[in-house]
């Protein structure tokens, strides 16, 4: 190892600092510095003095040198990585938000459609029930009318209502009377048609005949000999007003 005295006297520390030494010489100085604390202190003082001298003679460079440097340096890897990840994350969030909004709108419209269809279905259900009811009624009536044991009787009007016409379907087996009052002329609001059975000279109430109905089911009276229609005050009467008899038919 070179003597510290030699190094100092030959001015090798200065030359080392100024980068004037060959690689081998520089390495020798470096290893001497690494092992010799006193030499290292000499070098540190020399460095400090040179640096101080440089600062005392500094010349500030124009600002555009720094901006040129900033422009020349490659995009920082360390910083660009997280920001690019942030951008990716942000775009994912954006896509997620957009698709969520889209899905929500879709869901809302599907929900509306479903509500509408449910309403429709309820309406259809109601109509179906109504039709079923109507069908049952109609079928029931048809069954009654078409039954072989049902006997139709036509009640034509007398001189009071010459154009009136009602049809009574009587089934003795089932003890059923159904009347079609459609052919009876309409009455004022304070009057109604009423039907009676004649049983051994006594008129027995069978029920009212509203003219707005297709078929009216009336009370079946045993041993009735004839069917009679009278015009009575609205709401019906306990006893027939014989003067107002408009039609009668014999069952026997």
């Amino acid at each position, binding site marked *: 190892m070179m003597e510290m005295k030699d190094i100092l006297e030959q*001015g090798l520390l200065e030359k080392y600092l*100024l980068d*004037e030494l060959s690689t081998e010489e520089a390495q020798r100085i470096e290893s001497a510095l690494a092992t010799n604390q006193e030499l290292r202190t000499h070098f540190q003082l020399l460095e400090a*003095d040179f640096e101080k001298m440089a600062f005392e003679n*500094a010349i500030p*460079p124009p600002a555009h*040198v*720094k901006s040129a440097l900033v422009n020349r*340096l490659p995009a*920082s890897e360390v910083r660009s990585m997280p920001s690019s990840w942030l951008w990716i994350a942000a775009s994912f969030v954006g896509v997620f938000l957009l698709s969520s909004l889209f899905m929500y709108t879709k869901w809302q419209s599907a929900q509306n459609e479903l509500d509408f269809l449910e309403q429709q279905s309820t309406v259809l259900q109601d109509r179906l029930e109504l039709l079923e009811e109507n069908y049952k009624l109609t079928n029931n009536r048809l069954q009654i009318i078409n039954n072989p044991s049902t006997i139709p009787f036509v009640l034509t009007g007398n001189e009071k209502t010459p154009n009136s016409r009602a049809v009574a379907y009587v089934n003795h087996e089932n003890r059923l009377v159904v009347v079609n009052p459609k052919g009876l002329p309409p009455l004022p609001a304070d009057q109604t048609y009423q039907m009676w059975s004649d049983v051994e000279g006594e008129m027995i109430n069978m029920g009212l005949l509203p003219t707005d109905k297709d078929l009216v089911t009336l009370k079946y009276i045993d041993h009735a000999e004839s069917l009679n229609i009278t015009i009575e005050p609205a709401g019906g009467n306990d006893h027939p007003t014989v003067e107002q008899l408009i039609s009668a038919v014999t069952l026997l």
Partner: protein
Amino acid sequence: MSHYQEDVAVISRIKNKEKDALYLLYDKYSGALFGIILRICRNQTLAEDLLQETFIKIWENIHGYDSAKGRFYTWAYRIAKNTTLNALRKSDTLIQTEDLGVLKDKGTTTTEVDLNRLNGAIKKLEPHHQEALSLVYFRGYTHREANEEMGVPLGTFKSYIRQALQLLRESYKSDLLLIWWLFEIVV
């Protein structure tokens, strides 16, 4: 934290490729380094390019810097000096074939600073001490080139340098004493 420790922290950030850390060092050292580069090459435009080049090299070669071997400034100074001398060698060959003296003329006219005038402690030295130190430190001469420039034997030149450094050290030491003394008075 001392300015030396500060540098170590900043440099580890540069090793981590943080550009902001490089700009911190630029703000701190660009003036000192530009003073060296400009005094060696004597051309404002070229010096600006070379300063930029120096910091690009610092950025790219920061892993080659070992704080155990010396200060960051010493390392950066060597880069600045060598970058400038290499550029001058290149342009010298160009000048020989093309336009003689372009470099030297341009240098003195474009800069507003008197490059031959030095400031601070070195200014107080004897002219021959001043010149010897200036040649090797601010002008990029080797000891051998400098002693020829001054027209003195190498041995004499070396002793000029040693004396100059000795005087410089004393000057800075007395500055420190003055600061210490002022500090004591204030406290």
